[in-house]
């Protein structure tokens, strides 16, 4: 567009060129006048410039050397207990575990490093010092900051009413914790609260526990694969076949 106009009117840029020339002249004249210090007092330094070798940290009073001043004696501090014992909470916990779990079996049962540890969905039997043993599906393992407060939430059904109980793993009231039945496949959640819904509820686990106790007296606990859902599924298939046959009859 502009190229077009310039070619049409060759003198169109003359006015612009003249104006720029005038501005440049003005500027040159302005710079020619020397700026005196008196004109700009704010540019003057109030204090003399620091000497060569000056370090800014020296400007802080404490960092200055104290030439000519009386030396103040500094006494050596006593031994630090914090360095000796940086984590006292762990120390208190270890002291307690030595009493509450001397063999370390309970710790191993819930240790992440142990592949055979308790996982959510397993059925646990807890024998209590005072009171009847309680069995239930573990739907939550709570391991807070301090391992001493590890607890499991067990769910069972008693007289067709859902019952849940928190059990503190290291409580002296707990005599023993046994794994009755493993979950056949690893649960994909840490908290199995969905098991409270009727669709997923495991129901009364007394039968499972009774069978486990019978097997325990008899011999070794059967492996994970033959337990649980698959075993039940086979049973269900058989039942279904039976019912089908009945239907045919």
């Amino acid at each position, binding site marked *: 567009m502009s190229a077009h106009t310039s070619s049409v009117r060759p003198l169109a840029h003359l006015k612009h060129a003249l104006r720029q020339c005038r501005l440049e002249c003005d500027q040159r004249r302005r710079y020619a006048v020397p700026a005196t210090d008196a004109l700009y007092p704010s540019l003057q330094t109030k204090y003399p410039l620091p000497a060569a070798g000056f370090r800014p940290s020296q400007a802080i009073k404490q960092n200055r050397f104290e030439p000519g001043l009386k030396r103040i004696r500094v006494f050596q501090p006593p031994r630090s207990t914090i360095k000796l014992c940086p984590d006292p909470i762990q120390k*208190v916990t270890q002291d307690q575990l030595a009493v509450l779990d001397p063999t370390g079996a309970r710790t191993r049962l819930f240790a992440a490093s142990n592949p055979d540890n308790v996982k959510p969905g397993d059925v646990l039997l807890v024998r209590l010092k005072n009171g009847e043993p309680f069995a239930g599906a573990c739907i939550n393992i709570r391991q807070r900051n301090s391992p001493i407060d590890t607890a499991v939430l067990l769910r069972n059904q008693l007289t067709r009413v859902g019952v849940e109980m928190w059990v503190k793993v290291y409580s002296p009231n707990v005599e023993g914790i046994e794994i009755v039945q493993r979950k056949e496949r690893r649960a994909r959640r840490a908290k199995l609260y969905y098991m409270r819904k009727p669709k997923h509820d495991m129901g009364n686990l007394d039968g499972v526990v009774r069978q486990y106790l019978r097997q325990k007296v008899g011999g070794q606990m059967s492996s994970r694969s033959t337990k649980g859902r698959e075993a039940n599924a086979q049973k269900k298939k058989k039942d279904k076949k039976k019912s089908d046959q009945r239907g045919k009859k």
Partner: protein
Amino acid sequence: MPPKPTQRLFSLPPRFLCPSIPRTLIRTFRTFAPIVPGKQSRFNYGHNLPLLGASKQAAFLRKENNLPLRTGALTIKKGMTGVYDPETGKRTPCTVLQLDRCQVISHKRRDKHGYWAVQVGSGTKEARNVTRPERGHFAAHEVPLKRHLAEFRVKNEEGLPAVGSVITADLFQEGQFVDVRAVTRGMGFAGGMKRWGWGGQPASHGTSLTHRAMGSAGGSQGSGSRVHPGKHMAGRMGGEMHTVQNLKVMKVDAANGIVVVHGAVPGPKYSIVKVQDALKKPWPEADALAGLSVGGGGAGLAAAAAAEA
């Protein structure tokens, strides 16, 4: 304005008549005028007058029965955990406190400062980070530099341990009760509902935009048409010294400086906590030197070296 001459000045004869009176005695300020015995006051003057309740001495006597016999310790809050009683099986929530280089720095004396107290320091600091006046204070008592300083009031001179003695965790016995002081968590500028526990206004029934507000600040003419002093309002909450009384000591580990007390202690983790014998419980039956390795800075060092070896 020049100081006003005392009345007695006019009672004196002219100076040239009594050159024996020194000039300093005549030119005195009223406050520093020498007290002439038998001439203090026309009132409240006698032998068997009771002690004035507003006097400093009376205040000290009133307070005397409410002061612990022993010093306390400066500790650091390390966090909370639980402790099981192996017999009853009961779990008790508790707070873990740790002593670090806790040492007696100086004394406050009744004759000099007006009260008996032990100045206790904890932690340590590098000398280059401490100002000369502060370093001078520590050097005067021949004790190492400390990061934290606090005073523990005691009843009398017998409660003052030797300067420089190291305070260890066995100052407290398992089962005894302690009072714990610390600065609470700062909540910042908090509204009245949070700060004073007000109920607030209804959520509905015509309430508009005033659900958590203060409401009225006081009555009208009947109560003076003004806001009374101390009216609870919104403002800065927390960040102030708070005392929790009668916490039971659950465990003591002198070697690691650990004191475990029942329940919660004010303030966040890693803050400074003052621990002293509980006022409202009988004093613990302990030695005068329990938990105190007596000796100056050098002796304390020797004790520490012996413990290390």
